[in-house]
């Protein structure tokens, strides 16, 4: 199943078995920085504002249990389960 993903105003389609970051990368979009694509470096950290999703394993140093419960996640680990509205997380 395909879902619409909106990140920082850019919209693209993401299948439910592809992570949001890889779908974005595949479309040649640059809404988010692309790092390790494996849940380790944390550079693609986001907050999901609307929608349902699952996450693959993420570094606990980058997304704590509390943050994950608040909708924070790494885009390279997010599998959409509905249309999503996402905002980039800025650390600095």
């Amino acid at each position, binding site marked *: 199943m395909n879902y619409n993903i909106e990140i920082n105003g850019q919209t693209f389609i993401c299948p439910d078995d592809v992570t949001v970051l890889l779908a974005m990368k595949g479309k040649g979009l640059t809404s988010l920085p692309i790092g*390790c694509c494996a849940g380790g470096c944390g550079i693609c950290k986001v907050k999901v504002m609307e929608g349902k999703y699952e996450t693959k394993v993420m*570094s606990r140093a980058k997304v704590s249990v509390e943050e994950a419960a608040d909708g924070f996640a790494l885009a390279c680990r997010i599998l959409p389960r509905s249309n999503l509205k996402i905002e980039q997380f800025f650390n600095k």
Partner: protein
Amino acid sequence: MRKGVMRPGHVQIRVMDMEEALKHYRDLIGLVEVNRDEQGRVYLKGWTEVDKYSVILVESDTPGLDFIGFKVLNDDVLNSLKSDLVKHGCEVSELPAGDLDGCGRRVRFIAPTGHNFEIYAQKEQPGKWGMKDVNPDAWPLDLTGMKAERFDHCLLFGPNVTATRKLFTEVLGFDLSERVVDPDGNVVAAFMSCSMKAHDIAFVEAPEVGKLHHVSFLLETWENLLKAADLLTMTNTTKDVGPTRHGLTHGQTIYFFDPSGNRNEVFCGGDYHYPDHPPVTWKAEDLGKAIFYHELNIHPTYLEVLT
């Protein structure tokens, strides 16, 4: 002046899923799995390595580097260096023989960059994997993937590179082989050797302590590097940069990520270093050429993506 530290002997890497990590380090990079212990740690080596293992994988919810161990000549050197580390003001501890499989006692210290290092004198030595002791063949059959020859070095990011360079050169007897100097004369990257290699350990100045930039494995030829790049595509592995050449060390290289986001390098060739050689200097303002000699620029996340 050299003080009896021989080589990087092992690195312990934290991974978030061991089976995924083994598909990567064993099946793709081509390290040989030699053992697993009661703590679930998996021990691997490059086939040319004479000691029992050089890479230890440990499962964790936070990827990154646990520690790097350097092998020293003998127990006397180990004792003497331990005393020198204490005199230098390092926080030093000791781990007993057998804590790591087949490894003697290890003297642990923390560098000013926040990284854990250790030195040890003994490890089981079964010899090169798949090789006879007498009349050995050129290479063993049954290697997989990139057929990495050995764990070679790490590049680490952290604060206090100058103090860490002093620790490695003055206490442990490494040579500064290459350096990156900013316009104010500060050394912002230090590449150091305890051998004839262009680097056995390297540091880049960065605000956060104890970060891993990459763990590097040696391949034999440029042709092997191209095949390694093919394998990255064939296995949907996230590639970072390359194949290309570095300015620093002039090695030929590919960067890519393990399934937990730790950056790896496979490389071949490059410069050599003798103890009487002065350090090679690169200007920080020409960092593009220093790091990626063909592209001449650094893609934005190369210096920021760390574990």
